[in-house]
């Protein structure tokens, strides 16, 4: 619901009265769930597919008396939420799967100290993967961190389970993980709203070193015993409160165990196969600790079991262990016998095929459509028209040549953000993209490893604030010769334009102290620093060349606002047009920029889609015939 700020209350997803039925995205539903559960502190770091929870609360939740702000990284976000909840407040921390890795240190210790208010952690995994570097399955993380974990299968449950998580967290005095996958976070579904609750704030904090000081090893042993006892209570508490997040549907001696979005695939697959009886479906909402009593009872009398889940065989191994302990030996199908794949996301057809094999019913003919289509050019997402990162990488590549090096002897380390799209042709710029902040440390490591040619690290402003600062400190302290280029578009762009620590006002209108990149970089003690507008390509290329030859840690801040954000704020003031008479069809413009607003027309000349052009003029920079001209909008 981008841009909607003043929705009438009856359709505002956070304010509409109980009983209202709205089309909400899973993440919007979770945001509503936070309001229905009396959560006060909400924080996190942007990461697809989790970002819209906080964005929704910020957009529609003005005057709800909640603290909803982005934090500098996931570790800090979790610690903020933990601090709030040991003081009795209810809090929520949101992050994508790799964000959990950043936050894991405090999370593991939080299981020992526990909480006083509620702490819910939204962990959004990404089978596919659709937008994530790995297909990390965070159900293992729940087991590692020993934290109760529940999972919804649709937007309605996504909302309702926030409340379940809050209740469990307060009863158990433990952080609770709400684990989702992309197809729940980003699915729009019909959601019936419940009543909202007053946010719960600070109540008090009593000094209690055995709980809150992890320096005492005897205390830690005792807290570990306490933690294990708490985990044994989860299923009982859910039953006592009459909360049924584990459900059995149908009956028969073929048992399908499933969870999350795959429950929907199982139900629709059985419909497609026309299987109306003989199959029992166990939908597991409680992922960790596994609901042993539910599973034991639900699997009683089963002849065979099929486990349908995405990512790793987590439930499959859980069920196998449980049945072994019960002395039951039956066939268990899933990923270990290759019935379903270990990688990628599932869908209705894949599940239908798997179930048809196990149950022994044929797949309907109508599902076996195959169509020949002509070969099509792929369309990976490129840098946007007018993107300042395009100008930066063009300048970096020119600078390498100007300094007298070949492109293939100066590695450009990349980092997490839009600028990673520079990996595609025609720029072919970055050589690595690994994890938040790793551009700087990996480039430094390669120098330490003995590479005597220059190395370049490129990192976005928000990624630098998130994890780049300690890496740059390391490089400075160890006197490594390297060039670090901070691509400063003043916003977290890739995840939908969230604030960075350089903003003076946050999304919710709170005044903030802007932390300037150049102040931080100078304070770290770098040898040379330049702040440059990357659209002045030649100027930036000269500084790149100069810095590549200078010893020390040299930093360039390439500063120009994100093109999308700029257009939204200011509109497009000018566009560029190709004069077909003057164009010689050399395509220097398209091959130089790879701008998606450009194409080759039917006469073999360069052309620009006017409504996509934002007027950066980089194409004109490459034109040898001056055939591309600016046209100003009046």
């Amino acid at each position, binding site marked *: 619901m981008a841009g909607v700020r003043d929705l009438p209350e009856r359709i505002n997803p956070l304010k509409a009265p109980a009983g209202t039925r709205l089309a909400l995205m899973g993440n919007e539903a979770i945001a509503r769930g936070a309001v229905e559960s009396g959560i006060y502190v909400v924080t996190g770091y942007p990461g697809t597919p989790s970002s819209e929870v906080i964005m929704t609360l910020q957009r529609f939740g003005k005057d709800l008396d909640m603290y909803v702000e982005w934090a500098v990284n996931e570790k800090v976000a979790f610690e903020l939420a933990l601090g709030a909840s040991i003081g009795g407040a209810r809090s929520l921390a949101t992050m994508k799967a790799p964000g959990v890795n950043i936050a894991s240190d405090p999370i593991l210790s939080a299981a020992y100290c526990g909480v006083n208010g509620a702490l819910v952690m939204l962990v959004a995994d990404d089978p596919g993967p659709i937008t994530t570097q790995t297909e990390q399955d965070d159900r293992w993380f729940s087991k590692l961190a020993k934290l109760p974990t529940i999972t919804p299968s649709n937007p309605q449950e996504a909302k309702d389970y926030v409340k379940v998580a809050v209740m469990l967290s307060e009863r158990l005095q433990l952080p609770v993980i709400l684990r989702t996958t992309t197809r729940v976070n980003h699915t729009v579904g*019909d959601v019936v709203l419940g009543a909202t609750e007053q946010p719960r704030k600070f109540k008090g904090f009593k000094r209690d070193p055995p709980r809150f000081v992890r320096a005492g090893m005897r205390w830690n042993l005792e807290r570990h015993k306490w933690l294990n006892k708490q985990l044994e209570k989860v299923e009982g508490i859910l039953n006592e409160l009459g909360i049924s997040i584990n459900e059995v549907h149908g009956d028969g001696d073929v048992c399908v165990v499933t969870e999350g979005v795959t429950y929907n695939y199982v139900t629709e697959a059985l419909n497609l196969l026309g299987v109306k009886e003989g199959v029992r479906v166990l939908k597991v909402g409680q992922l960790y600790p596994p609901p042993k009593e539910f599973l034991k009872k639900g699997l009683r009398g089963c002849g065979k079991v099929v486990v349908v889940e995405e990512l790793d065989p987590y439930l499959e191994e859980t069920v196998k262990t449980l049945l072994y302990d019960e002395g039951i030996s039956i066939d268990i199908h899933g990923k270990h016998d290759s019935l379903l794949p270990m990688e990628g996301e599932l869908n209705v057809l894949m599940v239908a095929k798997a179930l048809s094999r196990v149950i022994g019913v044929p797949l309907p003919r109508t599902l076996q459509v195959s169509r020949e289509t002509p070969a099509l050019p792929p369309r990976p997402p490129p840098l946007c028209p007018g993107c300042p990162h395009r100008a930066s990488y063009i300048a970096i590549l020119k600078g390498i040549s100007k300094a007298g090096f070949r492109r293939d002897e100066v590695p450009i380390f990349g980092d997490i953000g839009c600028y990673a799209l520079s990996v595609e042709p025609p720029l072919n710029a970055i050589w690595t993209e690994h994890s938040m902040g790793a551009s700087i440390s990996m480039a430094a490591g390669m120098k330490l490893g003995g590479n005597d040619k220059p190395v370049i690290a490129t990192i976005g402003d928000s990624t630098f604030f998130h994890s780049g600062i300690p890496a740059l400190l390391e490089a400075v302290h160890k006197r490594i010769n390297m060039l670090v280029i901070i691509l400063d578009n003043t916003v977290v762009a890739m995840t939908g334009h969230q604030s960075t620590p350089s903003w003076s006002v946050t999304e919710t209108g709170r005044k903030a102290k802007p932390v300037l990149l150049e102040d931080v970089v100078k304070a770290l003690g770098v040898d040379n620093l330049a702040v440059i507008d990357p659209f002045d390509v030649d100027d930036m290329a000269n500084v790149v060349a100069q810095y590549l030859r200078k010893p020390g840690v040299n930093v360039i801040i390439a500063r120009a606002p994100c093109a999308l954000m700029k257009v939204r704020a200011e509109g497009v003031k000018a566009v560029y047009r190709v004069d077909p008479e003057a164009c010689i069809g050399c395509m220097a413009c398209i091959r130089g920029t790879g701008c998606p607003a450009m194409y080759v027309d039917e006469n073999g000349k360069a052309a620009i889609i006017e409504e996509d052009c934002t007027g950066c003029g980089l194409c004109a920079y490459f034109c040898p015939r001056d055939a591309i001209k600016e046209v100003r909008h009046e």
Partner: protein
Amino acid sequence: MSRGIKEVFNILIASVGGQGGLTLSRTIAIAAVSEGLSVRTGETLGMSQRFGSVTSFVRMGPQNAVMSPTFSEGMAHVMVGLELTESVRNLRYLSEGGKILVADTVKPPITASIGTARMPSKDELVGALTSVDPEAVIVPARKIAYDVSNPRAANMVMLGVFNRIFGILSDDAVINAILTLLPGRRGETSVAAYKAGIKWAEENKVVQG
């Protein structure tokens, strides 16, 4: 005017990031829920999808009938394409006898413009579509949108054509959904484009049933 539906209806929206495919899917979802239907949409958001391939799954049906956010190949009752290349790319999702409604826009991807991949001609693309649905409706959506308001509202022109043909949603529900999603001037121009799409469908007699 709403005809309603008794079974789950699957729509595939094929577009290029930035064309408004997600806005189109969300508009249908909001309108459908306001009409008492159940919906699910499945789409990939987040990574700067501008100018990349975007596929949206939209499903609506009676309450509790729709569960999965996506559907598999061969299950779309209709494909609404905002761009020809992406429409051809997604043909595998169309069911036997499924309907194709597509804007006549071609946006060559960068891979084609820089010469690393071959771009089929517009005729080849249209041919691929009509070989599957000989009655495929090819809509000059960008021109219609340009004439009434703004070329960016071509998505709403396609919504008008879709709803005039299938009539699942009432015009009031669709217009309210547009105005919920896009307040201010963008909402008004989008409604104008939606109505222009309806008018085009009537004038060109592509109306079924």
